[in-house]
């Protein structure tokens, strides 16, 4: 039975399986292809699930990706808050 995997971007298990079968095999490729992990939670909820799907479809070990690119901001903050540190040099 099909099931939502990425809740933010409404990506289904079948979407991910299809992408893997089409040759998009890594975490990043699946993200770029299906948008899984691109939403407001940035993969916090689906990251580990994606690893499991990859392992299952490719019949390999669960990829032990940390899945955490050191990507700031680590929390979604308002652009206005981010702007407060700017403009010093001007």
């Amino acid at each position: 039975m099909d099931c939502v995997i990425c809740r933010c971007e409404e990506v289904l298990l079948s979407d991910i399986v299809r992408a893997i079968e089409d040759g998009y095999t890594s975490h990043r490729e699946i993200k770029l292809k299906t948008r899984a992990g691109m939403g407001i939670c940035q993969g916090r909820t689906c990251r580990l699930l994606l690893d499991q799907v990859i392992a299952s479809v490719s019949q390999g070990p669960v990829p032990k990706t940390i899945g955490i690119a050191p990507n700031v901001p680590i929390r979604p903050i308002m652009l206005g808050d981010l702007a407060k540190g700017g403009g010093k040099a001007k």
Partner: protein
Amino acid sequence: MSMYMKAGIRMTSAEIVVIGAGVIGTSIAFRLAESGRQVMMIDRNGIGAATSSACDKAIFLQSKRPGLHMDLARESRNMYNTLEEELGQSVEFKGAGGTVAIHTEQQMLFMKKFVHDQTQAGINVSLLNQKEAKEQQPILADDIIGASYSPDDAEVNPLKLSQGFATAAKRLGVEIMTHTEAIGIEKSNGKVTGVKTSKGVISTETVINACGPFASSIARFSGVPMNIKPRRGVILISEKVDPIVNGSLLDAQYIAAKHLSGQQPEYGIGLSLGQTDSGNLLIGGSREFVGFNKHVHSDVLHAIAYHACKVVPALTNIRIIRSMVGFRPFTGDGLPIIDRSEQLRGYILAAGHEGDGIALSPITGCLVRDLLNGGGPTSRFLPHLTSDRFKEKTLL
């Protein structure tokens, strides 16, 4: 079960090997396959996984300098009109026009001349007063003094673009090997004989280096030196919001950062704003020479955010969910190198589009096709895109 999962290469020879599966490599692979060539495309990561997925989505014509740059961009822009039909899928292309916001009298002076030159060159672009600018782009700050507008500017989803080219190329028989890194070029008697990869050797007489900012590392083991250096660009991605941007938006500081070398703003900040079909805003950006350093100090993010809020105050309450770091292939004159190597036969370079990879992706496939096949509608551009134009001045 996917064939890409297994290690090792099924095909061990190819007529042409394209290294790099970004918006440039995939476009080349597609056009070559279309012209009957047998092509293999390799990428150390995945389709469009590097620079082509860390860029904005605008196809701007009015930001280009009149002359060769403009002619290339215009021709490429026209190719977009039929591209989705050719690829058999949507790349979220929209001819929704583009606006350049003008904030200061100094910018106005610069933009007046810029727009004048562009109009002379036959570009459909006009200057808007404050009221017209706000009508065109209601989210602009009240203190803008005007804008320039072109209905010919357009936009596309870069992720869909490389995926679209790749899918269409595959349909035409191109074999795509992802997670396959080129680690050497095999040569004999001054000719290419193969590409050494992390998964084995592919014998070929023609190899195309379409590695964008990473082209230099391939060039190094080909023995053919080149001058492309990475210029880092950072873009902020917002949460999904209802459509608020009409087409694409730049500000005059962006144009200045692009074209004026003397008065660069700090971190090369200039606003570029676009919105994807999914509702996320892409808020750019910076231009910096920091090598391949992916770590972005918060000062850069602050500067981008500060500038964006100044030009578009409506963005203030929108949340930023992440930042994108891309390395643009910088040549120095804003134009790519599409050229055969003189020293090594069969080695072709197709890289160096800097921030125009998205705009010039369609035409680059045709340029390389015409370079290899001879003749063709784009061959008139090729003499201007050779690598020996840099012979006098070394950038690195």
